[in-house]
């Protein structure tokens, strides 16, 4: 009997000290889905929609390198042991990329991450204003994805994320973007420009109509008159709002605090000195170590592109007020001897004069520090004592600009036989930039004008495809015309593996 008694006591002890647990997980530092559905932190979700733009739109590894480095306005040469980086930059410029390219992979995922966040927020109880912002942001990322990859994996609001997303092919994607924008426009605010706004949505919608025929067949772009009429009417609405105008100072749109000071901006990504995207790559990646602000001595532009500018065209580069006075650096394109404060001749690291030369190769040899004309379009956000630049720069990232709207209108006019009307618009821009007026407008000089105006703003590839020149040789760095398959980037291998519904783009 005693033994039984002990056994009972022990059994009791066991169960008193450790009852079986149900193994429910306490998540501590993160919020379970069900819990979040109750809390519904909508401002937090909306903010995450905006911050998701930083990686793919503001970084040198973002869509910038896909949209500009694949063209004649940018090159990322390998300089000795530097900037080899597994060859990712070179293949972009040479149009010889493969589906495993890190940039191609990451941007696909990062753009679609925006699509997800802007879709997911719509599951919750949100105001019309929030929904409109989310729809605009989704349309923007969807547009970029369609532009680069030719198709867009997409989810309906509230769909089970464990199931593979559906895939929007060109027509469906265009319809989705259009619906998102037209649904959003009535509920979008007038501004500020760093928040999704009515005018940004109209400008993006104009882009959609302008590119529709190119997206449907990139090798043979077409331009439906009805679409062009839409472009013109949307651009006219923006023009008629009188909210925007061209600045006499071209670079003002790219200065610190630009959203507040420049009237050219329609949509920007907000950067503050507390938190910012990597806008600073615009002055770090191209400039030399010995310049102020100091650079990473990397990216450049081609001399052929540089030569598209007239000398007096301020877009080619200017001394820029206090910035140049205090650092010696100009903005725009940097060619030839570089200077420090007070006109000091800068040297390279071997002690030779720092002279940015016109010629550049994919793999630079010899003196690897100086080849290539550099581009500094954003005016560096310097510290108060001009000792260096700021890590978190206050330059908002420019996404849509008034000059682009004017040029879109001009293009739509030109493509519908109204060249004279278009010429007036283009010459209006050229005049304010300090370039001489065109006598006539052709597709070629309009394309060049778009290049001069929008270089390094992630539009060059899109423009070249629409004008039929993306695959053209660009000189020694890409001496031959490329295969048609390069009109689209390949669907990354890891995305294909994860979603069988995604077909690979032709040729890859």
């Amino acid at each position, binding site marked *: 009997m005693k033994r039984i008694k002990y056994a009972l006591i022990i059994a009791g002890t066991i169960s008193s000290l450790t009852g079986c647990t149900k193994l429910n*997980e*306490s998540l*501590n*530092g993160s919020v379970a889905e069900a819990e979040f559905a109750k809390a519904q932190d909508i401002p937090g979700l909306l903010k995450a929609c905006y911050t998701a733009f930083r990686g793919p739109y503001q970084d040198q590894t973002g869509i910038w390198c896909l949209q500009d480095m694949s063209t004649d306005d940018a090159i990322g040469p390998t300089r000795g042991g530097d900037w080899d*980086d597994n060859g990712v930059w070179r293949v972009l410029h040479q149009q010889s990329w493969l589906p495993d390219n890190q940039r191609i992979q990451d941007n696909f995922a990062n753009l679609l991450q925006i699509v997800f966040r802007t879709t997911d927020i719509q599951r919750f109880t949100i105001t019309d204003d929030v929904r409109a912002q989310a729809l605009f942001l989704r349309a923007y990322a969807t547009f970029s994805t369609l532009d680069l990859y030719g198709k867009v994996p997409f989810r309906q609001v509230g769909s089970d994320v*464990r199931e593979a997303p559906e895939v929007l092919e060109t027509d469906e994607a265009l319809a989705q973007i259009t619906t998102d924008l037209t649904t959003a426009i009535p509920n979008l605010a007038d501004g500020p420009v760093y928040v999704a706004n009515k005018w940004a949505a109209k400008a993006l919608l104009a882009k959609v109509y302008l590119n529709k025929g190119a997206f449907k067949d990139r090798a043979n772009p077409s331009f439906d008159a009805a679409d062009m009429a839409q472009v013109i009417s949307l651009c006219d609405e923006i023009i008629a709002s009188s909210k925007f105008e061209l600045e006499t100072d071209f670079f003002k749109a790219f200065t610190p605090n630009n959203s507040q000071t420049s009237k050219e901006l329609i949509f920007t990504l907000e950067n503050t000195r507390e938190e910012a995207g990597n806008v600073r790559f615009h002055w770090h990646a191209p400039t030399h*170590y010995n310049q102020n602000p100091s650079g990473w001595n990397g990216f450049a532009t081609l001399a052929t592109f540089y030569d598209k500018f007239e000398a007096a065209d301020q877009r080619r580069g200017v001394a820029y007020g206090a910035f140049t006075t205090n650092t010696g650096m100009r903005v725009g394109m940097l060619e030839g001897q570089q200077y420090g404060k007070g006109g000091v001749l800068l040297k390279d690291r071997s002690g030779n004069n720092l002279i940015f030369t016109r010629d550049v190769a994919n793999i630079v040899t010899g003196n690897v520090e100086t080849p290539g004309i550099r581009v500094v379009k954003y005016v560096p956000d310097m510290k108060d004592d001009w000792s260096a630049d700021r890590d978190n720069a206050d330059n908002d990232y420019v996404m849509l600009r008034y000059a682009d709207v004017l040029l879109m209108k001009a293009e739509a006019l030109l493509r519908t036989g109204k060249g004279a009307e278009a010429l007036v618009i283009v010459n209006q821009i050229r005049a304010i930039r300090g370039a001489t007026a065109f006598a006539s407008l052709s597709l070629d000089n309009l394309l060049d004008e778009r290049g001069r105006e929008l270089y390094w703003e992630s539009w060059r590839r899109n423009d070249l495809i629409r004008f039929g020149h993306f695959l053209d040789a660009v000189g020694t760095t890409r001496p031959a015309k490329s295969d048609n398959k390069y009109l689209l980037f390949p669907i990354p*291998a890891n995305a294909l593996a994860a979603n069988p519904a995604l077909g690979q783009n032709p040729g890859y």
Partner: protein
Amino acid sequence: MIAALPRWVKRIPAFLLLLLLCSVVQAQDRVITGKVTDSKDGSPLIGATVTVKGTTQGVSTGADGSFRINVPASAKTLVISSVGYGSQEMSIGSGDVIDATLTATNANLNEVVVVGYGTVRKKDLTGSVATVKEKDFNQGVMSAPDQLIQGKVAGVQILNNSGQPGGQTTVRIRGTASIRAGGGPLYVVDGVQLPGGSARPGMGVSGIGSTPDANPLNFINPQDIVSMDVLKDASATAIYGSRGANGVVLVTTKRGQSGQPKLDIASNFGVSKILKKLKVLSASEYRDALGKYGVTGSDWGSDVDGMDAITRTAFTQNYTVGLSGGTENARMRASFGYMDQQGIVLKSGIKKYTANLNGAYKFLESKKLGVDINILASHVAEDIAPVSTDAGFEGSLIGMALQWNPTRALRNADGSYNIEALNGFPATVYNPLAVSAAYNDKSKTTSVLASVSPYFKITKDLEYRMLLSMNYSLGNRSQYFSNWINIQAIQAVNGIAQTANNEQFTRQVTHTLNYTKQINKDFNLGAMVGYEYFRFEDQGRSMNAQGFNSNSLPYVDYFNGSSTTNRGLNSYHNPTAELQSMFARVNVNLKDKYLATVTMRADGSNKFGSNNKYGYFPSAALAWNISEEDFLKESSFVNTLKLRLGWGRTGNQEFPSGAAQARYIYIGSGAVSQTQYPNPDLKWETSTTTNAGIDFSLLKSRFYGTIEYFIKKTNDLLLVQPVTQPGPNGVIWKNSDGVVTNSGVEFTLNAAIIDKAKLNWTVSVFASFLKNKFDKYTGADLFTGAISGQGLTGALAQKMANGQPLNSFWMARYTGLDHDGNATFEGGDPNVTTNRFFVGSPNPKTLLGFSTTLSVSRFSVTANMNGALGQMVYNNTTQAALAIGNIIGNKNIAKSVYNPNQLENKSASQPVSTRYLEKGDYFKMANLTLSYGLGRISNTFKSAGIFLTGQNLFIITKYTGFDPEVNTPKPINDIPSFGIEYTPYPPARTIMLGINLSL
């Protein structure tokens, strides 16, 4: 009756009730004393066990071999045994004194082996378990216990991730079975499972990178360990279920012995220097090279060595005081350790303060109730050198020192550091001495592991035991980088500082019921059932700031003085991991000839997906003691011969808790987003192992050993994959379809070549031949081995592919320099994937260990050597830190890349290629010890010994880096790399003098 008790009584812990309720068996006891000595030389045997046959009553002998035991009047026989000796039965006559002599046996199969949740006689063992006893441990300066068994167990590979004192190791038992992190073994200290990972916060700093992690076993004083048991096959590890797949290491600390109180003092002093210096150009060679390349302005006229400047002769002191004693029914041991190990790199080192208290108490007159207690407390203070695993083009301290222009003085004439002037431009050359001076990084990790384990003998055959433990660890780390250093990222923000506190808290409750019954003469039955609950929680907070104006104070001491606009806060609190398990084991022994063990464990974890809450891990093993058969029983040649065969299934659940669930996390500045893809099917990795072994001892057990074959197939491999976008940010945890197969043969051979009274020579050889293969995988390509250096962003060196070993090197084939001094590669462009090939494996094909002891009278010499063959090592150090391009950057280069007769193009890029892949074969004199035992000196000094140890005396290898036994962590997407060296903290060679005294 219980129900009738008032509520407050019910709240009295049940064990107090037990105390009150238990009745007492009355018996007339008598006292027997005696002494146990070695049959060979008559020396006293300390710690021999004396038990009354048929009971659990027992005592241990004291420092002079004597014992005193209470025996019941009915007792007939005493059983006397000692580790490493045979056991002897002495019948109890009328006298009160019984002296016994025991004979040493090298392959004593009565030896007890610690297995999961219990012990078994080695004779009864059916699984693959290797035991390393204290006397066989590696000697030298050891900051963590894993180093004690390096090269001592067949099939176990231990690599140093860093030479920093207290640095982490990579331990692989029977090869790498997991693609992801978590391929190391489970550590169990005195029955308490460790969570894996150190509470010391990880930290990175701009311009340097992240330093490697601390060894999670640092909290243990190696001097407190009496044995380490490595469970290798599934029949041994399946009792640990979902944590057992990659092997289990059981650490057993020293226990108190009854008898006279004993005071043991061990102290040692060590002197360390860098083991090997890399071959870089000397000042005069550098001048020549400058001339050959026509580089001007880089000869500064001095003659210095950057590595000499940042390394030093480092001193170590180590003291352990152990106190033990007690009575048969109340034994205790307390020990206190202090270790101060300087690192060979300036401003690095570890100070360890440890205290260990354990006791074994028996209660009731029947002695049926007992309580074991154990507390391991430690405080580990580290000074961490700025040596990172992922330094970019700026390099970390070792890279900076290797690169330092040997013609350039490190100090100016006035004694100040020679720092390249900024002139508004960032420097590209960093004075390693100045970087070391400007960088300060200190951590303190405080741990308490406490357990209490009451047990009660319900009947003669049935024992209940509980183990309640808690393990708390708090890591604090403070780091700052002074604003005067010419690293752009530091100077531009006027200095930076950060501090972090991380804490880990583990609780474990284990209940076991043990039944052992001799059913009849020929049939023994053992059975055990248990329940266990394990809970792990970790969290941390950190803050950082920039902009410090005064260098008179450490920045971390006046955060309030930092610039208010550049302060940051961070915290994390990971989901709590809970594991609930039921397990059982049955042992059957038929006539001591036929043995069988069957185990089963069911593990439920809250981090598993909802469709896989519980996993089941069975194992079965059979053994045949052939030597017990009649035809061998009388053999004078074969003493023991045992065949073992085992099969089992184990798991690896080393993925973070919360991984199966959809969650929302705050990602900064109020933004919140869904992270992680839910995966209700997520579960453990499953390994299925078959093991066959032969244990033998021959010629009076002078030759004994084990030969084993194993094959381990691991499937349901855990992988982190990017989520199919559009989808939640981050990753999805999946069990992928690949299979990793590890197979191999292991030999453990021991020989007592000379076995005389005053002359002994023993030799042990551990050899394993391993094969690793990855197969049947259909997902996206898996890469790892992130290669660091300028122009190497995104470069990688390893790929997992079907048909290849895990972590196979995959890169371009270097075909030499062309006429212009440009590197050429098979197929042309080394960056095109079609020009990359599988060019070798970092997994060794052969692991070797060799130990020998020669003792002549009181002198003995012990050598422990280990080696590995068949693996490749990637030398990222030469590629990134010492390549030819440095010659124009005012930096030094490796001798191996400078050939005056065929100059390499100085602006050549250095893509990943076989140019930097080297054979990693090595054989290392790990430690050599000369010791002299003074024996008993007087009544005061019961024993004393003195020894001299040389650690890392030499390595035989063709590898040109610091040490082929290296593994700088270079993971990609959480997939660990293997066998890459990148400017690591270099290993040291140490000479140590030690003294042991017993009072």
